[in-house]
């Protein structure tokens, strides 16, 4: 099974609303990253949170990390139609090679 699993698999909201998605993982991590993928495009890095951090902000993005529950959440505030994309969490363990293990993603649709 996947290291990272995301919930919900799909999310539909109105422009201006907040979008929250969650990621759970199984093994201890060094850091957790969130990426966005627009349809037909490559992934774009959004934010990285280290295992000793609990919360991080970047613009309209807020990420939390709870290592005791092995979970993270990504909040997008005041969503825009341009936020329509798939969002993936990825975990980095201490293993060599900078290996990232991705979750299955959350598809977000922001309706204008």
């Amino acid at each position: 099974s996947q290291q990272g699993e995301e919930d919900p698999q799909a999310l539909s909201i109105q422009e201006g609303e907040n979008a929250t998605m969650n990621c759970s993982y199984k093994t201890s991590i060094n850091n957790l990253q969130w990426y966005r993928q627009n349809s037909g495009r490559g992934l774009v890095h959004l934010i990285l949170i280290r295992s000793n951090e609990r919360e991080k902000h970047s613009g309209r993005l807020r990420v939390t990390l709870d290592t005791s529950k092995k979970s993270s959440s990504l909040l997008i505030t005041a969503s825009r139609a341009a936020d329509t994309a798939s969002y993936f969490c990825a975990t980095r363990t201490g293993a060599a090679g900078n290996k990232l293990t991705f979750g299955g993603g959350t598809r977000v649709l922001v309706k204008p």
Partner: protein
Amino acid sequence: DTAVSQTPKYLVTQMGNDKSIKCEQNLGHDTMYWYKQDSKKFLKIMFSYNNKELIINETVPNRFSPKSPDKAHLNLHINSLELGDSAVYFCASSPSGTYNEQFFGPGTRLTVL
């Protein structure tokens, strides 16, 4: 433009053929990766190279052979293509180190008929 580029963007081929996908990055990174994204959007690492040396090989069939002629290039050659190889293949790069993001190419959509 500084970026990770891949060619071709689309690849349609018959079962049994051999094909290659090329990847180049001009970001000065010393680590490069190949990922496979299946039809359900699940993204899985295949290979990772650091300074032309293979670091990660994730139980990928040996029909897949990566080759890194220099640290700016990581190509993927696939022999005897099978229907199940149909997917989108992404190349990525990053600096070495634990707390670094990865930069992804635009992907190559491979369709095996």
